[in-house]
């Protein structure tokens, strides 16, 4: 029965593939347009829309236009899976992207396996997606958590050698593992840990933790809270004068262009490790930032930039494979090099993780300035995927 099902599935993909060779290439986007991550979904959509417009204006992919089909996943893996299946089965998409939270990416990856299609995430940064939970059908074009930690730890070791670091993370598994990853990276470069505290997700008030923080007398405070939580944490730290004489650093999702305006001047001086900044000094990036701003009246952030880049990744792979067939495109994607606003990225064949230069960026007057850089090969870390 199982094999019978597989044959029907394969037959179905074959017929679809044969039909679709002439019409537009359909790319499904399952992304949170509502719910907690709606702001990230917005950047994903802006980036993709801009890339599709540019690709289609330049003659498309092998003469075929790209058609984007959006579905809202409400930041809920159960919804994401249902929508992904709809896009694969009814929307007949050739490729799918857009998932934000790691749970959605992992679950949608399974749907892709079952439907014999490929997906790429441009946002999820849990290391597991391209490590122990890797999949032959899943690619990641953005930098994962380990790469971000590496860049930040490198910057910290050079500017604040032997720092006393206090860690404040959101108390859930992802937040704890982000803190743990950075802690080991920092300690291996000589930093000392003077305290560690985890606040609940969606915490209203961080001031109860300030007593502990103050008495630990840190020189650096590391935090991996994100989104609305960062706004409250930074506002309250400024309110209590806690960020005076202390260097605040954090995860790449801690301060982004979505919450930067709401944090205001309290964000100044914050440093993070990240795969993208609007201030990357290259012609490609300047052109990208200008067209992004013209189209959306807002600056791109790492999510917008990586989502913009993913369509060029797919375009390059299809052109190399001369087909949209899953197996041929997968082969083409492995080891593929393609141009993005951040420069040339390389898709590592062994774990489907993109390699790219990483940056340490500092917030200054509402802008991210580059203060350090780590080469792609140093940042990426070992290949831990054993599934393919």
């Amino acid at each position: 029965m199982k094999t019978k099902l597989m044959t029907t599935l394969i037959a179905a993909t074959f017929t679809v593939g044969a039909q679709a060779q002439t019409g537009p290439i359909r790319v499904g986007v399952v992304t949170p347009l509502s719910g907690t991550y709606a702001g990230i979904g917005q950047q994903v959509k802006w980036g993709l829309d801009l890339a599709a417009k540019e690709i289609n204006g330049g003659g498309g992919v092998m003469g075929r236009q790209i058609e984007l089909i959006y579905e809202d996943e409400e930041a809920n893996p159960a919804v994401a899976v249902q929508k992904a299946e709809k896009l694969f089965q009814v929307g007949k998409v050739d490729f799918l992207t857009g998932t934000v939270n790691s749970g959605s990416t992992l679950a949608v990856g399974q749907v892709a396996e079952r439907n014999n299609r490929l997906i790429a995430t441009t946002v999820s940064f849990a290391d597991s997606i391209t490590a122990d939970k890797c999949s032959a059908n899943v690619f990641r074009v953005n930098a994962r958590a380990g790469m971000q930690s590496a860049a930040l730890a490198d910057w910290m070791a050079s500017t604040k050698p032997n720092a006393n670091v206090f860690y404040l993370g959101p108390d859930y598994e992802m937040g704890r593992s982000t803190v743990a990853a950075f802690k080991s990276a920092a300690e291996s470069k000589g930093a000392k840990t003077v305290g560690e505290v985890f606040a609940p997700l969606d915490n209203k008030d961080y001031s109860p933790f300030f007593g502990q923080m103050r008495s630990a007398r840190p020189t650096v405070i590391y935090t991996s809270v994100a989104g609305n939580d960062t706004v409250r944490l930074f506002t309250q730290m400024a309110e209590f004068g806690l960020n005076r004489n202390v260097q605040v650093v954090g995860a790449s999702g801690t301060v982004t262009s979505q919450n930067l305006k709401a944090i205001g001047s309290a964000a100044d001086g914050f440093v993070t490790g990240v795969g993208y900044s609007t201030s990357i000094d290259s012609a490609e990036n300047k052109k990208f930032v200008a067209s992004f701003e013209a189209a959306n009246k807002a600056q791109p952030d790492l999510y917008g930039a990586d989502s913009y880049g993913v369509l060029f990744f797919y375009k390059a792979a299809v052109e190399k494979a001369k087909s949209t067939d899953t197996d041929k495109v997968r082969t083409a994607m492995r080891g593929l090099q393609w141009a993005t606003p951040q420069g040339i990225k390389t898709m590592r064949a062994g774990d489907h993780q993109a390699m790219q230069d990483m940056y340490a960026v500092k917030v200054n007057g509402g802008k991210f300035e580059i203060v350090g850089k780590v080469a792609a090969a140093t940042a990426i870390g070992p290949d831990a995927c054993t599934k393919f």
Partner: protein
Amino acid sequence: MHDQAKPSAQAPSASRYFTWLFFLGALVFALGAGLVGDVFFLRLATEALIFGGLALSVDLLLGRVGLLPLGQALFFGLGAYVSALVLKEWHNSFWLSVTVSLVASALAGLVGGIVAIRAKGVYFALISFGLAQVVSKVVFNTRDLGASDGIIGVPGAAIFPGLTSADPIGFFLVTLATIFGLYCGLTYLMETPFGRQLSAIRTNEHRIPFLGFDPWRYKLLAFVVAACIAGLSGALYPMLRGFVSPELMFFQVSGNAVINVIVGGTGTLIGSLYGSTLLTGLKSVVGSFTAHHQIVIGLLFVVVVIVFPRGLIGYLSPLLQRRLSFRHATGRGGQ
């Protein structure tokens, strides 16, 4: 047709029509979908049935006992996690994982019931809400349960030799049979003295002790039965989708189950299945057009609460009943 004198929301013959309409309609749908080789709609319908099972358990408490559960997703999620763990880590068998999930939900229902049943009315609603909040947060933070990522890679469950839950039409029929069994079992239970005690409790709880019954025990039993129905439905979820995540226990899921019941018709039991099917379909369609499907669902819900508080089946049932009685009286129809 001895019941035509009381055309209530629970009028048996009209509701029986709706029951047959639902399950026969589902079979016709399966046949059609099988003929055209569809996969997506079959699996979407399977999901609607699974969430229909959850709604059924909400209707048992809300419609038959008068307790509004705002955290029923707790048992649904529990069943889903237990089933996923059994399938992935222990033994790949539909029957085993369903049995273990049932036992686990019954135990959890007993514990949860002892905590929650003491409270009445809105207190019960808020306690059940809090209970689910607490447990979902614990799951969200437990690394061994996959924490926020959930558990992926749950294999298709082996049901019969040659049939796994990965087969869209086969698993749709198995789910349909399961939900049909749950529904029939529940309607049968409602006909027994136990069911009549429940409706007496719903009508006036204070009188029950004078009749020599302890309402607490009946309510607790109903709570455990509801937990089992929710847990069993949840057990089917990872078989369909191949993963579980803590979101399955979140308030969104509990709230949607309540919405399904209200829209379908509180206390009608079959209405919860109609409600779930209707809203699952509606969401799948509306979600593709606008990111603001919340407003659509929310407004629909508000309108139903204000204008049709008896819901779809609760509203249609008396109409159909009247027609049936009329046909019976004029001798042109009837059985």
